[in-house]
């Protein structure tokens, strides 16, 4: 009897598993944005936010650019990895990680400034939603940076892991991709 043909993996298991998780997280953020939208539509004029504390949309645009650059560089690093250019992939992934960390740090600095200006969760409905939604994204970004950092470390140590790289990159693409929706909905 001939041996059964070996099944070939069409999509890496790490990517498929991460996509299932990403799907759940997308619904989580859609729920938050839905609550934000419905609350904002129902509130009386002047009761949504304090007039003297506008959100720093312009400086956040710079942070957003850093995040987008990070996502692009993760893709470039993967292409280099797939092409067996490990040293180039190492450098590119490190720069991508640094840009992602810069995004998180700069967002944290903005939070400090907003809190000092009196824009707190208790100050207004906008404040409550802002810290909830943007804070949830920051937690996801921090977690994704840990995964990317582990992938870079394995690569740097000469023991690259394709599954770890792909899984971490998939989650980072989600963090990068969900941010413009949050930014455009909450900051404007």
């Amino acid at each position, binding site marked *: 009897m001939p041996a059964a043909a070996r099944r070939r993996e069409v999509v890496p298991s790490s990517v498929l598993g991460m996509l299932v998780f990403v799907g759940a997280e*997308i619904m989580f953020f859609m729920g938050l944005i*839905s609550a934000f939208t419905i609350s904002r539509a*129902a509130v009386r004029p002047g009761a949504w936010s304090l007039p003297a504390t506008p959100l720093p949309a312009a400086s956040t645009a710079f942070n957003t650019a850093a995040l987008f650059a990070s996502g692009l560089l993760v893709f470039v690093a993967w292409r280099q990895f797939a092409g067996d250019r490990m040293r180039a992939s190492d450098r590119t992934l490190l720069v991508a990680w640094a840009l992602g960390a810069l995004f998180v740090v700069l967002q944290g600095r903005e939070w400090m400034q907003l809190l000092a200006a009196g824009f707190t969760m208790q100050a207004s409905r906008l404040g409550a939603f802002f810290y909830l939604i943007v804070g949830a994204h920051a937690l996801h970004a921090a977690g994704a940076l840990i995964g990317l950092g582990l992938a870079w470390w394995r690569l740097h140590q000469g023991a690259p892991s394709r599954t770890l790289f792909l899984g971490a990159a998939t989650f980072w693409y989600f963090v990068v991709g969900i941010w413009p929706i949050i930014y455009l909905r909450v900051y404007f």
Partner: protein
Amino acid sequence: MARALLATILVTAAPAAAWACPVCGLASAEDNAWAYGAMSVLLSAVPLGFVAGIVIWIRRASRHRDSP
């Protein structure tokens, strides 16, 4: 049992009468009603689109892998 059955019939057949639909009965303003409707559409379409996208991607990858 009879009350539960009656409540189920009211909720499914006449949600506005049973105040079971947030758009029909519970929305406090017209602006709020469009938001409920739009978000209901979004929360229904996003998971369906996501799952459909993954299925299409896996099928294409499978065909590409199996093609000579």
